[in-house]
């Protein structure tokens, strides 16, 4: 601890006078006060709760997938209940005879080793390996779309705020609110319908998949160009569905920042407009948008499911729908968990970035957050 604020000093004095147990609690409280500790604790709690929810959904709910599978096996191959249950046990990687709390602990133990079980459909393939083969494609498309929309959106929002009530402002704001209100999957359908089928500008069927089969993956221009060709449509949809959010948020944040006293002072000091716009207005206006970015990241991973379905882009969403249709429960369970982990990582990165961008946050004692 570099500096001790009066409040922390007082805390230390008080902990010295208390019993060892409460002193330990005091130290824990000191550790707890750090933003990193809180963020990590929150992340672990979220992963734990999410895995419990998926366990409950799969195992405990009335008409649970396990019961359905047992029924299915009994009907299909004339098995006895015991045989079917034993087979279902193997499939779900759950010891159905064990008491429920032991099943739960075994499940958590496997998770701790990164073992999400095996896929129902492709026997012997682990859920983890399936997810790791599709998740990067989704993250690439979603990430590129979000980043592009963020950069162009804050730029347009800044201009709209500077030219308030001009024709440009009205056009950009209205356009932004229209594209952000229409669900992304409808935009995807419209792109296919209008540009793919009616006008025939886009070779929709060739753009399917994550890359053309037969092409050798590697850091070649050909391969990277091919990846971009296949990801172009999902990226454009993620771009369109989010650009409105950034334009409108940046516009109102900039309007608020322009009224700040320090901007007036900077103008009075005769600083150049460019410097005022970037260092005084833009930087302050963009700050609240960084935490919004993390929230958007979570929503967009979910929204990607249907967009990947429409464009047949081989990401985690397409896999999720396939697993739902084939009732591959371990895979569904794994996808919920892994996408949650992605959102958590996005949140952590946004928190860190926020404290880097805003020097007021992250100093000792100034960690209260929002």
């Amino acid at each position: 601890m570099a500096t001790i604020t009066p409040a922390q000093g007082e805390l230390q004095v008080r902990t010295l006078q208390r019993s060892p147990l409460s002193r330990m609690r005091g130290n824990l409280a000191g550790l707890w006060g750090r933003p990193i500790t809180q963020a990590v604790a929150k992340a672990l709690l979220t992963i734990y709760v999410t895995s419990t929810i998926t366990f409950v959904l799969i195992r405990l709910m009335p008409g649970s997938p396990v019961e359905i599978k047992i029924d299915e096996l009994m009907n299909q191959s004339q098995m006895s209940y015991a045989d079917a249950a034993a087979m279902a046990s193997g499939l779900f990687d759950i010891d159905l005879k064990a008491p429920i709390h032991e099943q739960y602990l075994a499940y958590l133990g496997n998770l701790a080793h990164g073992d999400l079980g095996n896929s129902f459909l492709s026997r012997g393939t682990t859920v983890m390996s399936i997810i790791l083969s599709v998740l990067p494609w989704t993250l690439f498309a979603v990430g590129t779309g979000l980043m592009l929309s963020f950069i162009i959106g804050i730029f347009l929002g800044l201009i709209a705020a500077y030219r308030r009530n001009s024709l440009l402002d009205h056009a950009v704001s209205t356009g932004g609110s229209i594209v952000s209100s229409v669900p992304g999957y409808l935009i995807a359908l419209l792109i296919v319908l209008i540009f793919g089928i009616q006008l025939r500008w886009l070779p929709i069927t060739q753009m399917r998949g994550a890359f053309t089969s037969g092409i050798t993956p590697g850091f070649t221009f050909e391969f990277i160009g091919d990846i971009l060709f296949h990801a172009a449509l999902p990226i454009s949809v993620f771009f369109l569905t989010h650009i409105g959010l950034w334009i409108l948020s940046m516009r109102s944040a900039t309007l608020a920042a322009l009224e700040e006293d320090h901007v007036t002072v900077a103008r009075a000091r005769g600083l150049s407009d460019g410097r005022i716009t970037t260092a005084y207005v833009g930087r302050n206006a963009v700050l609240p948008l960084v935490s919004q970015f993390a929230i958007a990241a979570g929503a967009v991973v979910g929204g990607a499911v249907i967009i990947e379905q429409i464009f047949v882009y081989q990401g985690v969403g397409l896999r999720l729908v396939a697993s739902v249709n084939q009732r591959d429960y371990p895979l569904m369970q794994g996808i919920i968990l892994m996408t949650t982990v992605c959102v958590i990582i996005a949140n952590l990165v946004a928190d860190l970035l926020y404290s880097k961008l805003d020097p007021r946050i992250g100093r000792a004692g100034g960690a209260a957050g929002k």
Partner: protein
Amino acid sequence: MTAATAVVDRRDVSRIPAPLAGVVEFLRMMSRKPVGLIGLIGVLFFLFLAYVAPLIVPLQDAVDVTAIYAKPSWTHPLGTDFQGRDVVNQIVYGGGDIITTAILAALFSTLIAITFGSIAATVGGRIDAVILAITDVALTIPQLILLIVIAAIFRPSSFFALAVILALLQWPALLRQIRAQVLSLRERDFVEAARSLDLGLMHIIFREMLPNMRSYIVIHFIIAMTLAIYAQAAIMFLGLVPLSGKNWAIMLYFAYNQGALFFKDSFFYLMGPIMAIALFQLSLVWLASGLEDVFNPRLRN
């Protein structure tokens, strides 16, 4: 001079019965911003289309093989579907379920958010910490993915069940905002007064605080409706809800799975439900933004 006109104005308004005067004043304020007015008209139009029009227009359910994917004409203004049925007729009959589900889901999620958000803020301490932690966790799990898996397991077959599932997923964002609102209201004098009179937690929340958040709750109710429509149309499009009958999203599901997307002639069959959902969403968002200006005088200029 100005005093005299003010008196005349007041008399004019007083001639209109009290509830109507409020409506007139509301419309006058809404018409200041075109976007809000367009939104209001759009929402009223879709409510009329979904709940009143089916009472007037007879249902046309007969399959007509001679008119498959017919071009728009006077008898079929938006063409026909893969079985030769009128698209406009399906749009008219297909709004009720979706909008009812959205209203119910918004109602349930708003109730959850208000109840637990205000309890968290007024009680504080450990209860606040626990409620906040649950909210944060619920905010982190990608909701549409969880919804897809839950829908696949439960197969909600009534729109009431669907609304409950949607509500259970979409309360967290509103809860955080309600909590923040209550925290700031808590410091006001009238709440202090109620507390010193020992009027009880329920009285303070429902009689003192909620009336002051009315405008805020109305706007978020509308936003919650848009979220519910987004989510339910998504899972219906994927065919995860065994809802029979007509409904904009189920139309889309059939259109997509019949391969209508790849026929040049079926353009209007797909555009019908796409435009119905998109325009209703847009109307709701614009209505909310218009209401925001009416309720918050500081935004008006």
